[in-house]
């Protein structure tokens, strides 16, 4: 049985003032899949996420969620409520709030103005937050303000905030940036453990990390706004074209 598609992207084009950011992109993500996207700078990776999350509207083409829902007609928060969570390239947390509050604001639940005014925080909520704190290993720093955290910890916190939303699809942009090797490894393990229950797209530059999470999985290489090649990590690695445009220029070009 063929697994259900969770994301369908077909013939998508996007121009910025004449600059072709995305050209004729076709992309399919299966339910529970973990997909890594690699590609040199300017390949259109972040724009791709922008398109998926409603931040940018495509000029042409269709983007569907679960084969039914047209994402191009929706804006960021509607798409998020559908179950698409996004982690930004540089960590985006509420620096003035404590770690606990950061997670509290991200918990799945009603998102209206009045519910934030009148809904009380229940014991269940607190338990869920405690569990998440455990997972991202920030339990001891529960009452620290997010602005005081180290870079890697902020990455973890953001991942925690993403998980608090209980999304179906996680879009993760360079999660390992600024982390120690040990932390990076742990992040990889976490992402792998999420696959199956969730669908994930991970953008990454760190080839060690990519290798860790993409071993045996499908990898997409973006180049100049379209897919250069797609396939198992090992195949892609061996592809001479890929080596030329990307690997050939050195691994960590950031």
């Amino acid at each position, binding site marked *: 049985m063929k697994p259900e598609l969770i994301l369908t992207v077909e013939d998508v084009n996007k121009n*910025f003032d004449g600059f072709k950011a995305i050209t004729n992109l076709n992309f399919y993500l299966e339910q529970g899949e973990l997909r890594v996207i690699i590609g040199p700078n300017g390949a259109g990776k972040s724009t791709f996420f922008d398109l998926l999350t409603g931040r940018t509207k495509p000029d042409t083409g269709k983007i569907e969620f679960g084969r039914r829902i047209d994402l191009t007609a929706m804006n960021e928060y509607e798409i998020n409520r559908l179950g698409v969570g996004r982690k930004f*390239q540089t960590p985006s947390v*509420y620096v*003035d709030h404590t770690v606990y509050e950061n997670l509290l604001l991200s918990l799945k639940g009603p*998102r209206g*103005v009045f519910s*934030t*005014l009148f809904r009380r925080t229940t014991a269940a909520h607190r338990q869920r937050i405690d569990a998440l704190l455990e997972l991202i290993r920030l339990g001891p720093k529960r009452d620290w303000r997010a602005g005081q955290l180290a870079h890697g910890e902020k990455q973890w916190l953001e991942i925690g905030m993403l998980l608090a939303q209980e999304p179906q699809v996680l879009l993760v942009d360079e999660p390992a940036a600024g982390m120690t090797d040990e932390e990076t490894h742990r992040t990889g393990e976490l992402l792998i453990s999420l696959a199956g229950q969730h669908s994930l797209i991970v953008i990454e530059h760190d080839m060690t990390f990519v290798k860790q999470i993409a071993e045996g999985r499908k990898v997409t290489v973006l180049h100049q706004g379209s897919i250069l090649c797609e396939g198992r990590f090992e195949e892609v690695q061996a592809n001479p074209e890929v080596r030329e445009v990307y690997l050939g220029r050195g691994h960590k070009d950031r």
Partner: protein
Amino acid sequence: MPNLNDTQIIRRGLLGRIPARLELIGVIAAALVVIVVLPSLNAFAPEGSAFHVSDFTINLYGKYLCYAVLAISVDLLWGYTGLLSLGQCLFFSIGGYALGMYLMLMIGKLGQYHSDLPDFMVFLGYPKLPAHWVPFHSFWFAAAAVIWVPGAVALIFGYLAFRSRIRGVYFSILTQALTYAASLMFFRNDFTFGGNNGLTDFKFIVGHDVRQPATQRGLYICTGLLLLGTYALCKWLTQSKFGKLQRAVRDSENRVLFSGYATANFKLFVFVVSAIIAALAGALYVPQVGIINPSEMTPDKSLEAVVWVAVGGRGTLIGPIIGAVFVNALKSWATRAYPDLWLIILGAMFIVVVLFLPGGIVSIPRRVMARWRRPEQPLPPLPTPPVEASADPAKTSPASSAS
């Protein structure tokens, strides 16, 4: 606990360190002095005694309290939500005009022409009261208008602005344009609100002679209660989950948006609430100063209100109150003692606060304490990158983020 930098001081303010109960006691004590003690001394202490508070003083303080409420409304937007509105005085004035219209009609036949029409309509030859003036014979209609008119204006403008994601300085510039357009509108004589002269020469408010000290005292007490109420409301707002979200929007709007919150609705809600607060302040201001005219709604006045907040300490509730009272008291003194230098004092104060004291007056004790505790640790000479510059990847332009 790690070092606090300036921005953190701004955000936490003085009261961040004071236990909630102590703060509550302080607020109640201050409220008692303002709302009970001062008016009592005005009413009962004999004139000439050391305890007597003159009618003039009560009236002056009443004005300051109105400004304090206005300042809180500015801070609710700017300090807590990061929206620097240069149009708060528009709402303040609309509130003032709404009540002013009622007061105008209450003059009745006591005006210059002994006509039921306001004087300026008589001599400009208006045959009858324009239709939109008629319902303002009712105090309750006017009181309702104080709330719904500015609320509606804020709702419409806010909806348009937030829907198209206008923020930061663009929001400031647009609110400035809105205020400017509105003041041009009100300056027009044809607009039936008295043009440049505005509304003035009030006689009665709900049956009381507005010029009597007792009435003024009553208005003063109402203003004090309004300030207390505003403080309580904003305290509740900013401490609820809603308030947390407000600050989240200020610090990282994209994160909030990508967490499934319709940030525009939140901003709109704050904008409308703060417009209504400003309008209530304006409505109480007008009978106390006795005039409302369009120069109250020029962009400069709104900027001045922002100065109060900045000087007092933004992102706190006590800061705007201190700032409004302090700057206006200074103004009352300086325009008398050094009229030529007043603008220089105000301008310089603003520059100094922005550059060297971003936390305002309320941050001073904290800064002093921070120095005293760690003398070897110098204060940051200049504020660190603050609120709106927080790293937010989605703010970069698509051209550069299309990596």
